């Protein structure tokens, strides 16, 4: 039973990679006091979600969804699903924008309090 379950998981290494990346990102976000390290964790987590979206459309021996001629019969099963990729593009843009804002905030905090360490900043805020 147990071996079957683990065997089943090993059939899908991409999902295991997603779970590991996601949890790793959260772990960094929660345990690190340095603001930039927190951001690295946050970005890792965001990227893992993007990775998950892409991996749902992964297919062996699939091709790009482009019709080469108009007479060809459309066979959906030979194409990789393009929609998650499109979503991913937008999600990457959103992620980059978030990272930009967060780095600007971290920079402003550093200029104001002279430190990136959360405990140090809280101490200086008093």
């Amino acid at each position, binding site marked *: 039973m147990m071996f079957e379950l683990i065997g089943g998981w090993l059939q899908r290494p991409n999902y295991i990679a997603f779970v590991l990346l996601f949890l790793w990102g959260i772990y960094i976000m929660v345990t690190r006091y340095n603001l930039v390290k927190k951001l690295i964790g*946050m970005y890792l987590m965001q990227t893992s*979600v993007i990775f*998950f979206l892409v991996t749902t459309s992964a297919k062996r021996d699939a091709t790009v969804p482009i019709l080469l001629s108009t007479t060809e019969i459309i066979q959906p099963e030979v194409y990789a699903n393009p*929609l998650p990729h499109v979503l991913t593009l937008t999600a990457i843009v959103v992620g980059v924008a*978030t990272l930009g804002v967060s780095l600007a905030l971290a920079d402003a*905090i550093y200029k*104001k309090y002279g430190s990136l360490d959360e405990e140090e900043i809280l101490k200086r805020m008093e």
Partner: protein
Amino acid sequence: MTRHLPVILFLLPLGLAICLPLIGVRRREWCRPLAIGVLAAMVPVSFASLAGVLQNGTIHYDFGGWAAPVGIEWVADGLASIMTVALSLVGLVCITFLSSVLFPYLGSRIVPFYTLVLLLIASLIGMVFAGDLFNLFVFLEVSALCAYALVGLAGGKALVAGFRYLILGTFGASLYLLGVGYLYAETGTLNMADLAQRVPPLVGSKAIAVGVLFMFIGLGIKMALVPLHGWLPDAYTYAPDRVSPMLASLVTKVALYGWIRIMFWVLGAHAVVYRIPVLFLVGVLGALAALVGAFLALSQTEIKRMFAYGGLSHIGLILVGISLGNQTGFVGGVFYLLNDAVMQAGLFFWAGAIIHLYGVRTIEDLGRLQGGAGWMSVALVVIALSMIGIPPTGGFFGKWYIILGAVEAQNYLAIVAVLIATLLTLAYFAKLFERLFRDRSAQQPLPIREIPLAVRIGLGATSVGVIVLGVMSDHIVSFLLKNALPPGL
């Protein structure tokens, strides 16, 4: 023409937000009148769109001419239309208030400031109209990015509060996106109407259950549902006093609206996931939020922080209303949501004006006003009556319909929760009024200062607004009953 009104409503603030950096290079002083003008123009457009929806039924707007399940769709139904009307009205009052001379001069930062505010309004409109889950995510993130930046604008402690808001908000957004991915993997569609067909038969599947759970946790962080509210009090307390009304009254409310959309229009009103009725769970969470938020508000010493916690408890009350599973409760919850947008704006107007006119930040210091502050106190009393729920105001009718719905559902625990939350609200306002009107011990009474015009407009509009909402409650509720009910309720 009517068909295009929702998009025009969105393009008005977005267009100005894009043009403003270009205009602002040369004509910095144009930013304020242009922003107020665009928000004022949105009000008639939103009313026209509402009238169009009433006349011709729900507007489905297909972008680029691609029909719904394949293309991107905006849906303007009764609920969305009345939300956008509330959004434009409250947004107009908020932007008038935040451009007051009361607040420190922004200098060259005035251009990015108004750009962010307009972008925030545009993205909230987009969230209300979005017809598919992924667009909801994009607009959620755009609005959140504007909110992070606006919170951080105050500098100092606000930077740290904004940073924390950003970390938690992004965590919530990632969870939401993950949930959308689960739902897409299971059903193969992102369109809400399409999902509403495909999700109910699959509701027992693990992927749907986990996906919905992720989405609700994500949105719960964005709307500061109680166990997930950690970012809110600091963010609202330290945010610039001119923007906290806008953040408090609009951002969390629209996230809550997104939650309502997903719960009723995608999952269906009576979805049962793993033998747990979703509505029951939401009701428990709402009651918890209503009580915990009000308790925490009672123990605060800072005015803005007290109002922030009060907002948390009202989010809970709205959730209690919509979770009752009958029409009365749902309508009561939605009506209370509209009220809450107005009340939160009014409370934070008052707090911001008091801070900048008299330098009073804590409840302790209120005694130094010697009951003064002119008719600003009258406005506060009116809004507080609505927060507590005293008859001629909108807050009373919201709670009244929620309780009627609870009686109808025979959910007596919900009634108890609403009543205790009401008593606690009364208690924390009593604490505030006791200081404001009865404390005569202060050594140096503060001189009464003239109230700037924008503050008069803001406080006047919100305090009259809650009474108008109360007087009109009959019409609004019957409108909601006729046009804004989710399918199958």
